[in-house]
Structure formats: structure tokens, C-alpha cells
């Protein structure tokens, strides 16, 4: 009996001639994520992926957790692989269930069989019936319940037979690296990590940009963003985080522009700088955590003005979501607890008391002329620190 993890994928099926590109990428990602744990052999057969460990003492729980964070996987099951011989299957079924009952206090079950190999002498209902009876005979305490069983015992008969009882949902989406690269504007808040995650889920690689206003915000705020980038990189590895010193720009905006426009102009500068970084890294778009109407700088009017500062497309995956929906995902991807740490920028200094909610693009552009844009941006980019997060 070999311990193997069966990996299923869904959406890749739809990819027609590109299917193997997606599959190969997924296999590569699985290897990259699991190899540090233990050497693995990853094989593909009939639109499924099998992960086999080369060592006997592998932390399977950890392996399954890691697989749970790989985009492109629909579900996984730890399976036992046995030869497709019904006598062997019967024998191994008993071992499997014996082992299972040592860990779980299950009382009822049903059997579900799939026969992929039509040459196998028994058809699926026959396999179910025979195996069900065999189990009942050998485990007096178990009863069959086809409607609401404590566990389902699955048997897949292909070239070999696979026995399992768990189907663990995966992260879904598409394999990281199949969708190009995007640059995420990452703040310390709840929204932007979720926005990044949602784009990453579609197979997109991420870079992140954080605007740091030291000493108006403390270095703890920066550490918090690094932590958030680390959490995101568990889903899409190898994120580069660019920490842009933003204080001087904020001070200049504050000094030279009308007070109610400072926030929107600041947002435009963030876009401009993020775009320069994005173009240099080969990103095909910017990602923000904005949602319509959430704050003054996220009204449709404001977003029009912000958008005007960038030429790359700006992806806003949260645009139609309510805060609670965002929080739900933040909790699921484990960024929420970090996001709510109270090191957010404390500087009411740079926040207008009554920021404009319907800024005019013409006026914004006019006000911006008071700033030496090229010098300010150059200076910020020259002092940007890039951290490779892992």
C-alpha cells in the first residue's frame, strides 16, 4: 500500500489546446511547494495528478495544508493505491477501514465506486454491493446509511485501484504563473491583501508596493505590511515587496495643494509610482483594494481621477463587494488578524477634514502642476527598498 495524494482540477479542463500548459504549471507549482517538505514524485494520468512521497515519514497533514494553498486545485484526497484486483481490494479495504476507525468514532458508512477501467470484471454497483457486504461482515459496529453516512468509502478502479474517504476542497482558481503578473498596491488594511489574493487566484503572479510615510507612520506599520506580503506569498510564492518612501511627496502635496484635494492627489501619486514599478517588473496591470463608495477616495468620481494617473489597467476585484464579504475572505486567507493590528498610520496630518468626494479631473490636474512631479517620483523610486518575501 502506497500513501499518495490525489489532486483534482476543474477549470483547466476547459482550456482546450492549452490544457497541458496549465497542467504542467500546476505540477511544477506542486513540486515547488512540497519538495521542501519531502521529495515528491508528481505524475499526471487521465486528468488527475498523483503526488507520491519518496520517504515513508511524511507529515501528510502539512502536505495537505500546503496543497490547499495552491491555486488550480479543485480538491485533494489522501488515497491508498492498490493493484486493480478485487481480492486485493477487499483485503486492503479492511486494513483501510480498520486504520480509519482507530482515529475516528464512525458508526455509519456507504461505498461509492467508480470504474474507469471498463475491463474490470465488476461494474460500479456490483463493486459497491460486494465491498459494502464485505465491510459489514468484518466490522460489526458499522452500519450502512446511504443518505447521511458518517463517512463515504470511495473506490476508484483505474489502471490501479484507489481507496479513500476524504475529499478536501482546494483553493480553486488557476495555477500561479499562467496569468501574467500584476502589481498590487498593498496597504496595511483589510482590503488590499484580499484584492491581491483574488487576482492571484486567477493564476496571476504578484508584486506589491507599499507607501511608507516614516516617521509619520512607525516602522511597525511597515513590518505589518511585510507580514501581509508573507501571508499572501503562501498562496502565490515569490512576491517582491517594494517599500516606497512617501513622506516627502505627502509633505509637498500638503504644502502646495488645496487641503480637500490632498488625498486624491496622493492616490494619483501612488498610481504613478506603482505604474513605474509595474512596468519595470513586467506587470500587466495594477491591483487595488478599492470598492465603490467605501471612503471619499473610492467614489466613482474619485476613481475616475485616480485612474487617469495610470495607463496600465487597474484591477479592482473588490469593487462590488461589501465590507463584510471582504472580511470573510480576509479571515479565510488569514490576513485579517494582521490587518486589524493598530499600527495603521496615525497621521491625521495628511488627512483632510473634509476630503472632496466628487473631485474634478481638470482641477486635480491643475492643482498638481504646483508639484515637481518628475523629481518627486524619481527621488521616491531611487530610495525604494525591495524585499523578496518568502
Amino acid at each position, binding site marked *: 500500500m502506497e500513501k499518495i495524494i490525489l489532486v483534482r482540477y476543474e477549470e483547466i479542463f476547459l482550456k482546450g489546446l492549452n490544457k497541458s500548459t496549465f497542467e504542467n504549471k500546476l505540477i511544477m507549482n506542486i513540486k515547488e511547494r512540497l519538495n521542501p517538505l519531502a521529495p515528491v514524485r508528481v505524475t499526471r494520468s487521465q486528468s488527475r495528478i498523483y503526488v507520491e512521497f519518496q520517504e515513508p515519514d511524511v507529515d501528510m497533514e502539512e502536505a495537505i495544508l500546503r496543497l490547499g494553498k495552491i491555486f488550480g486545485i479543485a480538491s485533494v484526497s489522501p488515497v491508498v493505491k492498490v493493484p486493480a484486483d478485487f481480492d486485493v481490494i477487499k483485503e486492503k479495504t479492511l486494513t483501510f477501514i480498520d486504520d480509519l476507525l482507530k482515529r475516528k468514532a464512525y458508526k455509519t458508512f456507504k461505498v461509492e465506486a467508480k470504474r474507469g477501467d471498463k475491463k474490470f470484471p465488476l461494474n460500479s454497483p456490483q463493486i459497491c454491493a460486494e465491498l459494502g457486504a464485505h465491510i459489514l461482515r468484518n466490522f460489526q459496529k458499522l452500519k450502512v446509511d446511504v443518505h447521511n453516512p458518517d463517512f463515504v468509502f470511495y473506490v476508484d478502479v483505474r489502471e490501479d485501484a484507489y481507496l479513500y474517504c476524504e475529499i478536501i476542497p482546494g483553493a480553486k482558481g488557476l495555477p500561479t504563473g499562467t496569468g501574467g503578473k500584476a502589481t498590487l498596491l498593498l496597504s496595511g488594511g483589510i482590503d488590499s491583501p484580499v484584492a491581491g489574493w483574488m487576482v492571484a487566484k486567477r493564476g496571476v503572479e504578484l508584486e506589491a508596493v507599499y507607501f511608507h510615510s516614516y*516617521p509619520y*507612520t512607525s516602522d511597525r506599520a511597515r513590518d505589518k505590511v511585510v507580514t501581509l506580503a508573507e501571508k499572501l506569498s503562501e498562496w502565490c510564492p515569490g512576491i517582491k515587496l517594494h517599500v516606497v518612501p512617501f513622506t516627502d511627496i505627502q509633505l509637498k502635496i500638503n504644502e502646495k495643494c488645496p487641503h480637500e484635494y490632498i488625498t486624491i492627489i496622493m492616490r494619483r501619486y501612488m498610481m504613478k509610482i506603482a505604474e513605474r514599478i509595474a512596468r519595470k517588473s513586467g506587470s500587466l496591470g495594477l491591483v487595488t483594494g478599492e470598492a465603490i463608495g467605501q471612503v471619499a477616495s473610492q467614489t466613482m468620481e474619485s476613481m475616475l481621477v485616480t485612474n487617469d494617473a495610470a495607463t496600465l489597467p487597474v484591477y479592482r476585484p473588490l469593487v462590488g463587494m461589501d465590507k463584510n464579504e471582504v472580511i470573510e475572505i480576509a479571515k479565510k486567507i488569514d490576513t485579517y488578524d494582521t490587518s486589524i493590528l*493598530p499600527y495603521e498610520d*496615525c*497621521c*491625521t*496630518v495628511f488627512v483632510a477634514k473634509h476630503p472632496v468626494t466628487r473631485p474634478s479631473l481638470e482641477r486635480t490636474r491643475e492643482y498638481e502642476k504646483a508639484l515637481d512631479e518628475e523629481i518627486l517620483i524619481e527621488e521616491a523610486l531611487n530610495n525604494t527598498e525591495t524585499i523578496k518575501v518568502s
Partner: protein
Amino acid sequence: MIYFDNSATTRPYKEVVELVSRLMYEEFGNSSSLHNLGIRAERILENARKTLADTIKASPEEIIFTSGGTESVNMAIRGSADVLKRYGKHILTSPVEHSASLETLKALENMGFQVEYLKVDGYGKILLDDLREKLRSDTIFVNIMAVNNELGTIEPITEAAAIIRENSDLTLFHVDAVQAYGKIPINVRSIGADLMSFSAHKIHGPKGVGMLYIKKGTRLNPLITGGGHEHKMRSGTVNVPGIAGFALAASTKIGRMKEDQQNCRKVREKLLDELNRRMNELGMAIRVNSPEDGADNILNVSFKGVKAENILHFLEMHDIYVSSGSACHSRKDAVSHVLKAAKVPNEWAQGAIRFSFSGENTEDEAVVCAEKLAETMRTLGKK
């Protein structure tokens, strides 16, 4: 580096670090072990206990070692309340206590105790008449700190002890002496408190070590049960190296307390003079929140129209370290409960900075600090 945050913690004396490090390696025995190694550790422990008891004029049996000030305070409050709950549920405390006390008392309130807060003056000093008035026959516990950690205010604990004693023999009086130890003379006999809490790391000792003075005859239930260490009052293998480090730090600090405090006073005055002069030049006002007769090592000053945390980070850029009287949370500005209790107006409380000195600080540092602060205010004040 200019370190003006000595009330948060201090840098341990070099000799202390060396001693702790040496003992950790060479005298690693468990002080409860029956063999020779254990006995050696126990001797070190008991010597330290004697040294530390001497510094507050207590006897060694009256000293219990803990993991720090917070645990000592918890043990004093919870341990007493547990014993005395059948005599009454009324507890008095000053409202300017450290959160180690206030949060613990809040927990007791949820358990059915009645906690009443004493009135304080504009410097957070308790009003003795109010104490006299609020004491009742069922008052089981009174909690007052010796020196306030934010303002440096010295509380009239000796007078308070006398008033409490007059009222009832039942009432236990706990003094949080964490900020007072090594800064003002402490004599447990003349103060007359039943319980006093101390911490090592505020006086150049190691972190994670504290002690609780329990006056002979005072009944207290332990917080932590187990192997019965520390006369069954505090179980857990005893941190012998840390406690030995505490003893060395304490005897050193108390040996030089007078000179250190005189030095702190000079630095404090220099800083205040320089701040007054420079802020005056800028046409900006400051507010001194600390009392003139407070501890020499603490100076709390407010700057108007600026968030204290911003000032703190600006000074940090110049390698100058201070504390703010308020933490800026993302959307609400939490002003310190001490400044609130002392009725410092909100617009001042938001810009309150605490400077806290040690014997190692100099007047020159005060001059540099004032200069950088003025620079900061010139930048920040413009907004």
C-alpha cells in the same frame, strides 16, 4: 543614541548581564534539587533574597519572587481578594494605576467585587480626605502606586497606610512600587503597607524577574500552583540567575540612587529649560504635566496640535527614544487614562511626551533632545 525611556525599561548593567550569563551556564542546578548542585543554586537564591530584602528593610521570608511587576501586582490583588472575599467586596484604588492593577481590578469587578476609584488632583495625586471618606468597614483592599509611571507623581502612601490602618485591621494595602524602587527610598516598616510589588528591569536588572513583598502574617492565596516553590506561594522552577541579577542590579542601583537622582534632576531641568527657550522662540507653548516635586527621573510635557506618536517617531529618526502618553490607534485617539484622570485637557493630552532618565543620561543629551524636538515641532507644527 539618547535613551530617555528608562521608565519603560532600562539597559541592564554590564555586570548584571555577565553575572546572569555566568550563572546560567555554571550554576544551572534546580534550587529544589536535593543534590549538591541544587543546594548551590539555593544558596545563591537565598543570598539574593537577603540582599533584596535589605534594600527595602524587609526580612527575607517576606519576599516572594515572580516573573515581574505585572505578576506581583496580579498576585497581590487576586491573592488577597480570594482570601478576603468573605469579609467584604469593597476595593479602593487610585485611577492612575498601571494597567497591571486596573485591568486586574476590572476582572475582579466581573467576579462580583465592587471597585471604587479615588479622586486625584491635577497631577494624579490621590486626595487623602477622599480616601478617608470612601473607606468602609467592608473595604478589604486598597491599591495605590508609589510613583506614577507617566507623570512621576509621588503618591502619599505612608499617610494613606496610616488612614487605612485607622479604619480597619482587615483591609490589605498594596503598593505598586515598580517605578519607585531605586528612585525614592523605600522602607517597608515605615510605610506600613501589607504588599508591595517590584520589578527588576526598571532598575537595570534582567526582564522577567520581579518580587512581591508580603508583610509577615499577611494571608494570601497563590496564583500559580504546582511544585510548591517559594513557600508554596509561587510554584515553578525558580529563575535563580535572573534573581541573582536582580539582586546585583538592586544593590548597585540603590547604592548610587542619590547621585543618580541628582543627575536625573539636572538633566530634567536642563531639558525643560531648553524646551521652554526653544519653543518660546518658535512662538509655541508647552504644558508641563509632571509635578515639580515628582520623581526626579520623569518629565511629562505636552505639545499642542501634534500627535505625540508623530513626535516620537521624528525623535526616533535622530536616535532619540521617548514615550508618548497616548497611542494612536488607527481611527480613535486613545488618550492615556492617567492624563484623563489628572484632567489634562484633551488637546494637550494628545501631544504628551514622557521623558524618563537614568543615571547614565547627561545634560548634553538634554540639549540635543530639545534641539531636535524644536526642529520636529517646526516641521509638524506647520500643518
